[in-house]
């Protein structure tokens, strides 16, 4: 074991890990919030099994929460953890591979029994040797027994006592990183104080016991110091991507003067969006939990027909079910926003794991020529802005817009400087004005957007539908009409290019390698590119938030680099889209299909290889 020391670090990643019932998500969240309040920049990554309670003590049932925080801008939750808290042998086994060499492992020595080692399928009684972790800082802490000991005065059943274990670990970690406990105390009081004072008392008691344990055993526990990050002035909050998405949609409703309707069906990892909006009856949200995914989008289309800002949220399998109806909104030219929080597929796939493999489904996964606008958010907090923009484009161009996020963004969180509503641009829905000349498919000659007349507006009565139509909304299946309308629907989406910014390059505008990414991988992409730039390599990043249409300077940006590499968490979907749209360039690929984000390390390694080749 290593000696006691005080370590000063730029950034630290901690992984809390235990059984899915051990409260690791709460522990991690409380620690993250405490760090953010202290002024550290943070990035988090919850990683949990899809079963509510997988068999106790098994590797499959391990639930983890990683947070990276530091004194500089933090863009990822960290490839490898500096500190691992393992509540049982399975947690140790599941996470050994994600440790920084020589890192610190705090483990509940009480739970490392023969029976639990067996459940985690260790072959020997020495899991550390088995996992080759001997040169790590191993800190055995009798978490279970200390928890029991500190609660012996309280009249609590054994189950309730054991549920406080996570607070002991939290207290200890707070001591290690010099975090005050006041935020956590406040949280516990608020959560349990009124309902169950005894549970509140127990949790408070245990979190202090953990903190004091660290203080008393200084001789063996390293203490880390991480200074606050210098960041922009303003009011901050911690936000995850799903909440940011929900609030971006709410902001768009307020800006556009429309009421917000969400028709959705619960699906991991998108459910939080529906929940966050259902909570906002105070802001007038009409939330409709539909009987299935199809009804989710269909009620949304109905609400758009009736004049609301109408949205639906889902993930890959649900998006597949919505495809026919999405085509209806293309044909009827109704403004809806569909949020797809992508997860691992195909089929049910990996519900709680992240992936970017719905891109081609989003672009092409419908019958007929059925173009939609496609945006992708790139960090948890910018989900707010891209959701807002998705609504703005839909309402101003009378076109369905799909916003792609993913499980990593949806569940991951970061501190966010909250904007004032006055910082956001206006949204002007295309409400019809003149009943004398109104026809549902008359268009603005510039944008090709039609006008929106909603039931209840006198003199604008009209019919729309899924059949090919004439300007009045009547059925028209003439060959030339269908040709013309197909071209118009495509051009209408392409003209959205005028609403979006040009593609930006992080780094020099020309060089040896242009790294191309899109959506939720931004944090890892920028970290790896910055790391390479720091060593003098001519590498830049072009990260896409606008997928369809592509920014108009895309080819210009690409043309200034010797090599291009497209990195994505799929088998190469954006790369093949780029090959179709801009075939004049050669695209190298880095792809990953593990249900996990990229690691900075593996990206750098790949880019180095490309530079040498």
């Amino acid at each position, binding site marked *: 074991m290593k000696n006691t020391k005080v370590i000063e670090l730029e950034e630290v990643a901690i992984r809390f890990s235990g059984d899915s019932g051990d409260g690791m998500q709460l522990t991690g969240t409380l620690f993250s919030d405490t760090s953010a309040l202290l002024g550290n920049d943070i990035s988090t990554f919850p990683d949990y099994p899809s079963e509510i309670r997988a068999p106790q003590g098994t590797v499959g049932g391990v639930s983890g929460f990683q947070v990276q925080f530091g004194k500089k801008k933090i863009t990822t939750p960290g490839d490898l953890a500096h500190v691992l808290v393992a509540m049982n042998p399975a947690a140790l086994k599941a996470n050994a591979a994600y440790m920084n060499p020589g890192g610190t492992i705090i483990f509940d020595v009480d739970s490392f029994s023969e029976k639990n080692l067996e459940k985690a399928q260790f072959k020997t009684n020495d899991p550390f040797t088995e996992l080759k972790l001997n040169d790590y800082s191993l800190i055995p802490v009798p978490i279970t027994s200390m928890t029991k000991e500190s609660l012996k005065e309280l009249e609590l059943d054994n189950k309730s006592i054991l549920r406080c274990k996570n607070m002991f670990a939290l207290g200890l970690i707070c001591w290690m990183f010099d975090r005050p406990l006041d935020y956590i105390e406040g949280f516990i009081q608020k959560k349990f104080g009124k309902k169950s004072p005894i549970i509140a008392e127990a949790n408070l008691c245990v979190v202090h016991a953990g903190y004091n344990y660290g203080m008393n055993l200084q001789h063996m526990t390293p203490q880390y110091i991480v200074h606050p990050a210098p960041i922009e002035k303003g*009011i901050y909050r911690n936000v995850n991507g799903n909440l940011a998405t929900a609030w971006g949609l709410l902001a768009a409703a*307020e800006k556009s003067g429309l009421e917000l309707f969400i028709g959705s069906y619960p699906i991991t990892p998108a459910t939080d969006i529906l929940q966050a909006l259902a909570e906002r009856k105070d802001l007038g949200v009409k939330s409709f939990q539909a009987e299935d995914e199809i009804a989710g989008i269909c009620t949304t289309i109905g609400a758009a027909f009736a004049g609301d800002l109408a949205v639906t949220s889902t993930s890959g399998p649900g998006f597949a079910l919505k495809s026919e*109806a999405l085509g209806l909104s293309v044909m009827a030219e109704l403004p809806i926003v569909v949020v797809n929080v992508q997860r691992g597929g195909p089929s049910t796939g990996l519900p709680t794991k992240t992936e970017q493999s719905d891109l081609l489904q989003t672009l092409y996964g419908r019958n007929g020529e059925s173009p939609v606008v496609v945006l992708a958010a790139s960090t948890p907090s910018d989900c707010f802005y891209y959701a807002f923009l998705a609504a703005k484009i839909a309402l101003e161009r009378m076109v369905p817009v799909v916003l792609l996020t993913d499980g990593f963004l949806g569940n991951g969180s970061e501190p966010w400087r909250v904007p004032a509503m006055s910082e956001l641009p206006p949204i002007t829905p295309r409400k019809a004005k003149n009943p004398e000349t109104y026809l549902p498919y008359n268009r603005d000659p510039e944008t090709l957007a039609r006008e929106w007349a909603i039931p209840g507006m006198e003199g604008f009565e009209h019919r729309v539908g899924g059949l090919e139509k004439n300007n009045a909304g009547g059925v028209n299946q003439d060959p030339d009409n269908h040709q013309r309308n197909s071209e118009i629907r495509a051009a209408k989406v392409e003209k959205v290019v005028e609403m979006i910014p040009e593609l930006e390059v992080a780094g020099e505008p020309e060089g040896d390698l242009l790294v191309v990414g899109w959506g939720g991988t931004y944090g890892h992409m920028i970290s790896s590119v910055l790391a390479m730039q720091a060593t003098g390599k001519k590498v830049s990043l072009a990260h896409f938030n606008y997928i369809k249409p592509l920014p108009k300077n895309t080819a210009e940006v690409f043309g200034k680099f010797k090599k291009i590499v497209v990195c994505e968490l799929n088998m190469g979907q954006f790369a093949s889209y780029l090959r179709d749209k801009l075939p004049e360039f050669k695209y190298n690929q880095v792809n990953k299909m593990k249900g996990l984000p990229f690691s900075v390390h593996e990206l750098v390694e790949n880019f180095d290889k490309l530079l040498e080749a």
Partner: protein
Amino acid sequence: MTKFNYTAKDFKSAAEVRWCPGCGDYAIMNAVQKTMADMDIAHKDFAVISGIGCSSRFPYYMSTYGFHTIHGRAAAIASGVKSANPALTVWVMTGDGDSLAIGGNHFIHLVRRNINVNLVLFNNKIYGLTKGQYSPTSDRGKITKTSPFGTIEDSFVPGQLVLGSRGTFFARAVDNNIKHTQEVLADAAQHKGTSVIEVLQNCVIFNDGIHEHISDPKFRAERQLFLKKGQPMIFGEQEDKGLILENGRLKVVKIGENGVTIKDILVHEPAEDNLGLQVALINMALPEYPVAMGVIRSVEAPVYDQEMKKQIETVQKTRKITCMDDLLQSGNTWTVEGENCDEPVKFFDNKCFG
């Protein structure tokens, strides 16, 4: 005194009606247009939503707001329309394939939620638009293009589905009896909640005469029992037959025989929550029973779109968050300031938005 003085003509669009000559849909459309005119509600506030099928072409023939959607989804889309704007009068036009096969899930959930729409279910027991395949209401053994040796499955009884879904309103009519269809539609329009009106409709091309044994005007009095609220359940040319309950089952009796008097005959109470009797009425089939027509069930229950509105109003009365700026700054926030902090770069300044 009416406000608008509409006639059925005010609800007809200029579009050429393209149903087959002799199709039962014409009669149903006339009845619907007449009913809408009589409702005395502003023309601009009607929205007619349909799915796919012959009946679903309906919105194009109306001069109101209309939406011809996709197969099976009219109920879901209408749910969105009505929830978004409860002030609208929403009608759903659908068929047995549209609502009971591909759209079965939306149908039962619309009924369960009790959203205030009127759903007219055109039941011709066949797929007409795809030219003659069996539907979920086709009788067992029915020979069609996709069941050349007869179907081997039982059919849905639409009223059973409605009541099984806790429906608050179910009525039945026949396309060739316009006057009665209109009466039923008027009652449906009055009802607060989901009103399902099953209209036995004749497809002249692919299932001609499927309801003839019931609908033939010559035998109407003997084969159809017209239910009227608060009236005894009697039928027959001489109005001399009626229904009684015997050993828990409905039984047809003759008034004046075996000591049966009009006082023994069951009185129809559609507003009573009497599922057992109402299902028994729905199930009545020839030749043992006459077929029940009219409003079979019409009970009061909370209405989804109104409840949604009410919930928002209630929460807003005591709300702390009144706008987005309130929300953005609520809860756990902290302020960053000091000399070494930069001025914030605003998202929309950073990216050049037009």
